[in-house]
């Protein structure tokens, strides 16, 4: 029997699941698209992982992270539900213990995390702007009809610089179209876009922050070699992309789960069977006050598991209703 830990990162664009053994070796990773259906995606992911794992593996702890961490945590029975900033920091420290800067670019958000002496020191996360995140690159790749996996390689082929506006996704896109209509090479435009995104990232998130080497680049966009090169060019340092860069959040969650279960003694994991259950989510507008909170009710096989979304606690604290089926 091998003791293993599960890390699940339910992001806006992708859901990542990793399996880690007791020696913190990564046994398996899974990266699937969330496509706006987190519950279905978690189920799909869990059953895929279950089929791929050896039979002698037993899960001793589960951690969830990402914007869907609460939902996923309730569904799977997580021992740790942690925000993605901390999870990413922990995972990076595990690979490069003296890391000082983490650049993380995901589907819907980007972050910069600064560490000093192995301690989380400062961070910033983009707020109102989507320029420079994975979704935007995805869209541009689609528009140019280049598979997203190839996008970075195109940038490397570029020989001359084309400057693209980076401040805003809308400006960047119209600038790209204008340059394209002027007859610039596609690879130069793609490279220009990569550099624009990096500039935008550094101007927004990196403002006033001291970016020190070693620098780690992780998140889904780290797979884009064009962006990596643009970072190196502008920062003047080597930028490391760790193995499993696209699932670092999940790795952090698993590491935390390992620690938590060591303290707690046992796991709350509900087993891979959760993938076979039927989940229904019902949301309704509470009518008790003009806040009209959108309350979400989460049921597993018709039995209510949890409710959330209310400001006052009328629904989320209502413990009696949880077992209404049993009563």
């Amino acid at each position, binding site marked *: 029997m091998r003791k293993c830990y599960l890390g699940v990162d339910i992001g806006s664009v992708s859901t990542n699941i990793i399996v880690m053994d007791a020696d913190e070796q990564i046994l398996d990773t899974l990266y699937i698209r969330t496509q706006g259906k987190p519950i279905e995606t978690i189920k799909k992911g869990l059953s895929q992982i279950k089929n791929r794992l050896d039979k002698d593996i037993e899960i001793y702890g589960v951690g969830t992270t990402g914007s869907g961490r609460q939902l996923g945590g309730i569904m799977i029975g997580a021992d740790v539900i942690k*925000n*993605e900033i*901390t999870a990413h920091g922990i995972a990076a*420290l595990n690979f490069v213990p003296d890391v000082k800067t983490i650049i993380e670019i995901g589907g819907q958000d980007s972050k910069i995390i600064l560490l000093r002496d*192995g*301690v989380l020191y400062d961070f910033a996360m983009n707020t109102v702007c989507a320029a420079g995140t994975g979704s935007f690159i995805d869209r541009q790749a689609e528009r140019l009809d280049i598979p997203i996996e190839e996008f970075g390689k195109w940038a490397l082929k570029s020989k001359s610089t084309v400057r693209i506006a980076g401040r805003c996704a809308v400006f960047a896109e119209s600038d790209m179209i204008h340059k394209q209509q002027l007859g610039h090479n596609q690879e130069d435009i793609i490279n220009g876009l990569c550099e624009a995104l990096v500039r935008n990232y550094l101007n927004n998130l990196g403002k006033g922050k001291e970016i020190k080497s070693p620098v780690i680049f992780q998140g889904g966009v780290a797979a884009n070699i064009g962006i990596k090169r643009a970072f190196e060019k502008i920062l003047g340092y080597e930028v490391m992309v760790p193995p499993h860069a696209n699932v670092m959040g999940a790795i952090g969650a698993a590491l935390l789960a390992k620690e938590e279960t060591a303290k707690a003694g046992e796991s709350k994991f509900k087993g891979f069977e959760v993938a076979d259950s039927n989940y229904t989510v019902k949301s309704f507008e509470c009518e008790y*006050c*003009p806040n009209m909170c959108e309350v979400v009710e989460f049921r597993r096989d018709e039995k209510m598991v949890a409710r959330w979304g209310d400001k006052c606690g009328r629904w989320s604290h209502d413990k009696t209703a949880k077992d209404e089926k049993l009563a």
Partner: protein
Amino acid sequence: MKITFPHMGKTYLPVKAMFDDLGVEFVVPPKNSKKTLEIGTKYSPELICLPMKINLGNYIESIEKGADTIIVTGSCGPCRYGYFVEVEKEILKDLGYDAEFVVLEAPNGNKKEFFNRVSKVANTKNMMKIANALKNGIKVLRKLDRVEESILKLRPYEKNKGEMDQLYNALIKSLEKSTGTYQMAKVIDQTQENIESVKLDKNREILKVGIIGEIYTIIEDFANIDIGKKLNELGVAVHKSHTASGWIFEHLFYNNIGSTREKKVYKAANPYMKTMVGGHGRETIGNAILYAEEGYDGVIQVMPFTCMPEIVAMSLLPQIQNDKNIPILTLIIDEMTGEAGYVTRLEAYIDLLRNRRGKHKNEKMLSWR
């Protein structure tokens, strides 16, 4: 004449008590809700800040409940707040509402006009009566501010979770029913006592965070996603740098009192900001420094999207963060009602503070997980 006024935190309670004392007819605007925000957003200029959107929502909801006169405090601080009334007047007129604004300020220092306006609202020329009601109203407000301050400070320590919330909710309910300042003051005093005698677990490792930034978003919990409570739940004692009573003083009496705290704040801000930049930009800087010097673990700046004075202050915060070695987080608030993004940042920020404190404690510093 039926008077109404905008919401800001729990100020509606003392205002209600004051009007009860004076025997003036009034409408308390319905509590801030998504509906308020929706109305306000629909009719406000798109890029105006959140406080005006909520204010406008308050007025329209009150007018629909029968109010015809809106009283607002004036502001000479060069931030957009000074123009709110002028813009709102036009918007309400365009919408076909017939409401009169009374701005409590002395135009160009004209004290006589100020008293005229006050006596019009108070429905009496008896200055003693007005002064008394005002004095007692402010007393109630101060007491109420003190209750809230105690809760934010003590709630993370409470042994039985929810006790203070219960006391507070009961207080608000009974204040909403009571009439007059005398009755209110009594109820608040009782609650203050009860809150201070709630059983605490002082052994908990509780962090201390100060809230700085734009005053409305600090005080109005509907606007700041109830940040105080959220932080309390994460094991953090909170202090807000602005209170409603402080604000009333400042705006009704034209800063000429200049409390000792205020002087301290300006002095602290001096090396970074020597002059006023509008709104409370200078206070934001000064308070950030004072919190750092008072040994707080962290400082959070809260401001509405497009708030100019706070943007100026924000650009100085990284330098203060370095000089004073205190992590500062900025939260920009607009009409988003999805809280997940804010919660993620707050959680990560608190993790960061805990790790820092842990590191401080044992110099050896183990893994920070």
